[in-house]
């Protein structure tokens, strides 16, 4: 190439082209040279990047207005300033707030640039006057409360069934939440007006959904995808259990004393002994059938009711000082023994 250039004579046609070639050549040579230099240099690993860290001059804007909380009138309507829930902002809250953990003896940091204040949810949008005015505003859509439902008892009496659902609110393209489908039904068992058998059967049907301490039956459904389906389903379950409880099946007659869920004094040996004792005392000696024992009216025996209750109580609620003492008193009364003297 250089040979070509040396022998080159200005030629009107090829000038531009040649110049171009020459330039190309020269730049290529330069770049290779540079590359060689770079390779020779030993590169240092700069982990902390100390070289790149340049102190940048922070330019502050001059035309920043003072906090607007300084300009607020003392009698302003706070609801206008903070109409909705939002993160705390020091320039719009005219309160000398402090928050944050500091060693003992120091004041907590002020409100400016305080992440602690921004983290906690604030209720600046729900001050008492605001709540009051909002209630006034939506009163026009409220109907009057039924005047006979004036107490908790009245409500429970007229609306014994309680349906519990949850609504969810979240930011996402979809407003649906799968948890919203779950429906819980609660009813007091006593309000269903069941007889003894039906009540026993109902409790056996619902199993652990019945809480004997509160007398509440709680039925929860979440198997259907929509809330209304689950509501229908819990209502169906309650209806089905209710009607099933009233049915008496043929096999239920096979229930023996072992299947009893409670101690029935009438069916047990204690009554047999009492009746026998009574008959002996009267001097009648006759053998009775089981059914005759069961249907024997103990009210003709003096103090038998107290004895019956004492025994049932002992057997149903278990042995305790109370029941034993009650039993002792009942037996003394029955046999006509004197009261136990308290020493």
């Amino acid at each position, binding site marked *: 190439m250089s040979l070509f250039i040396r022998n080159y004579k200005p030629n009107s046609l090829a000038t531009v082209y040649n110049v171009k070639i020459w330039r190309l050549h020269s730049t290529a040579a330069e770049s290779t040279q540079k590359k060689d230099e770079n390779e020779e240099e030993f590169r240092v690993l700069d982990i902390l990047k100390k070289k790149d860290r340049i102190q940048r001059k922070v330019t502050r804007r001059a035309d920043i207005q003072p906090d607007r909380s300084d300009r607020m009138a003392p009698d302003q309507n706070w609801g206008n300033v903070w109409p909705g829930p939002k993160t705390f902002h020091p320039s719009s809250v005219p309160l000398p707030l402090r928050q944050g953990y500091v060693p003992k003896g120091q004041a907590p940091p002020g409100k400016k640039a305080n992440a602690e204040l921004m983290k906690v949810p604030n209720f600046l949008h729900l001050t008492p006057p605001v709540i009051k005015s909002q209630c006034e505003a939506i009163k026009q859509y409220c109907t009057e409360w039924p*005047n*006979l439902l004036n107490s908790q008892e009245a409500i429970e009496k007229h609306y014994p069934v309680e349906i519990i659902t949850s609504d969810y609110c979240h930011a996402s393209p979809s407003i649906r939440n799968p948890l919203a489908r779950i429906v819980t039904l609660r009813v007091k068992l006593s309000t269903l007006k069941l007889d003894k058998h039906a009540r026993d059967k109902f409790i056996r049907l619902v199993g652990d959904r019945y809480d004997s301490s509160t007398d509440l039956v709680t039925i929860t459904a979440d198997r259907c995808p929509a809330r209304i389906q689950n509501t229908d389903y819990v209502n169906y379950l309650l209806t089905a259990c209710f009607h099933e409880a009233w049915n008496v099946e043929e096999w239920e007659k096979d229930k023996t004393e072992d299947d009893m869920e409670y101690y029935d004094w009438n069916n047990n040996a204690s009554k047999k002994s009492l009746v026998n004792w009574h008959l002996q005392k009267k001097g009648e000696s006759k053998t009775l059938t089981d059914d005759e024992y069961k249907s024997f009216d103990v009210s003709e025996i003096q103090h038998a009711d107290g004895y019956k209750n004492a025994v049932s109580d002992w057997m149903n609620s278990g042995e305790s000082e109370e029941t034993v003492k009650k039993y002792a008193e009942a037996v003394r009364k029955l046999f006509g023994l004197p009261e136990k003297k308290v020493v």
Partner: protein
Amino acid sequence: MYSNVVVPRHWTRLSCLCRSLTSLEGQKVPQTAKSSDGISPPPRIRRGPTDILQALAATVGTDPTAAHYKYHDDPYLIPLSNFRKRAYALSAEAGRKAAAWIRDEHADLFTTREWDPPNKAKTPYFNADPHIKAFEPKPIYNDESKVTEADLQYAIKNALIEDSTKVFQLLGGVEGVNDELKLQFLQLLCFYNEKEPDSMEWLEERWFAANTRDRQATTWRVGGLAEKIFQSLEPKTSEAYCAIIQGMAKYYQAERAHMLASEAIEKGLQLSTSVYNSLLACVGFLREGTQMRIEALKSTLAQMNEQGISPNSETLSACLKSISAWGGGKALQQVALQVVAEFRKLGIEPGLAAYYYLLCVFCKERGPRYDLLSTMINDLEKKQSLVATEPADTNFFITAMGVCSDHLQNMDLAERLHNLLMKDDNYKLVGDAYKESIFYRHYVTVTCRLAPFEKTVEILDTLIPNVYVPEPSVMEEIIKTLEVGGAGDRLAQAWSQLVVFGHARRARLVERLLDAMCNTYQGQDEEIKAKMRSAATDILNFGIMSEEQEETKELRTPGQKLSASALCNIVDMCSDAKDKADPGWQTVNAALQKLGREEAAGVPAKPQVLADVAQKAVAIGQPAIAAAAVTYLAECGFEEAMSASVQVLSTMLNRPESEVEALLGQQHSSLTGALHPSAMAIAEAYSIAKTGAPVQRESSSSSSDSDSESSDDE
């Protein structure tokens, strides 16, 4: 992920009350809002989906300290000038536009599930529920698109002019589309004159758009697509005629519109009221001269009557629009009143647009006063709510406020008008950003001129700067009011407002402010005086700083410099310091230097001020400043220079004035060694003032300003 709002037990009781199972079904709904038997719940009060929200929103009023809610509530991000307001709002919208662009261009990203293997998404999937049409990706049409008539219908329904034109072409143009669709398309084209309208989606763009003045010029596209479609329609129905006539009339192709109208009438086709409304609005384009035009208007109305078409309120405003466009004069005003009276007889009350045109006809700047406005406001205040029906409705409030301010000059009416605008939801009638600022310009002007001072200050505090940023002319008005009211602290604040609003480089305004400050300076409290002095110092420093910036950045349009009078005002205020070490003296010094270097325009209007300052300076022990002041006076050739220099020198040397005069009469060279440099400079100045030239040029350099700290040791 979910914020779990578990409804407490009490509330579920209230909201999910079910009577016992048996009575739940078939329960009769009572008809009163009261419970029928005292137990069952009363029937619910019907409400729309947003009624509760609106009721709650109505409890929130305006907060004068806060910026509009579209801006961030942060001192760094609250815009305080008109430029920033516009820039911030449009930037936020630009972000929304970018998001919408991504949504449209990459619509597939939003309809696939993450867990679907690529290219195997079986069903179209939308993660949004409920599915909102407005947030869906918009279809994009190009030459390869396969389109159906449904696409054209979609485009027409959503007023997408360009898309519908494209689809129309792809469908095969005039031949490929059925007549019904063609008619719909024609109506769309005529309404928008084949131009894509500003999208409803971009509120800020519409708010700040500059198309505030609708020009009354023929902009109808002659031989465009609309006309082609109209030609192709066979037979031409009355709907087609209505559409094309209204389109032409709306875009001022008046003659052809009227021709087509008469053609339609000849064919026996029924035209609508709105066709006549549009024809009436452009009737002035047919004739020249007021009388001819009025006749044309009347004949069109007569024709309307012949056709048996009943007018509506828009007919009235169309008539008044035409009349108001023909200029002023008694005759037109008469006709306007006749028209209004005639329509009143028919039971048609004028609306906001009609009122606007009436104000245009009657309330000219130079003309007799007509108090139409008070009756209008009486009428509007009685109305339940103001509903916008025409685009011209938004012109009413600014024009009315303009009339209050310029024509009637009535503060009472202005306030009533403002209250009317603030009532309920009426603020939407303010129009756009431009109209809003004109409205407030008039309001603030009339307040400054006519309202009592306390009232003015109160209104200014609520409006500025969050609702309205005053323009320079209004700012001047405000400064004038504050000056008259003698509010020194507010004048000092006004300077920082000038900086914030971006008016600080307007020399005229700053000079006006300095003048006002200077005039009110006497008689203020010491504290306020200090504030005013610091404001004056700030003004000077700002001027110096902006000059430096200009030099470094080489701005093409250099800012105007403060005049010498303004600098004198600064000097006057800052020299009111009892203490020698007061920073005010530095400002005085800087200002005098600026004067001395002839960096200020003109000469001071009140040279006596400088003489007084020199006297004060020397009394307090700042001889260099005194020297600078006297030298400047002498160099400018003021008469006060002589007496001032004598007085200052006598104070400085503690001799009677006659002696000093004698001293100054001596040979100059004999003084050179004996006197302090500052005293020397004053002697210099005296001789300049006396003879018009310095005695010894070289010695005058000794009065450099660097020794301003040197004390008077004589």
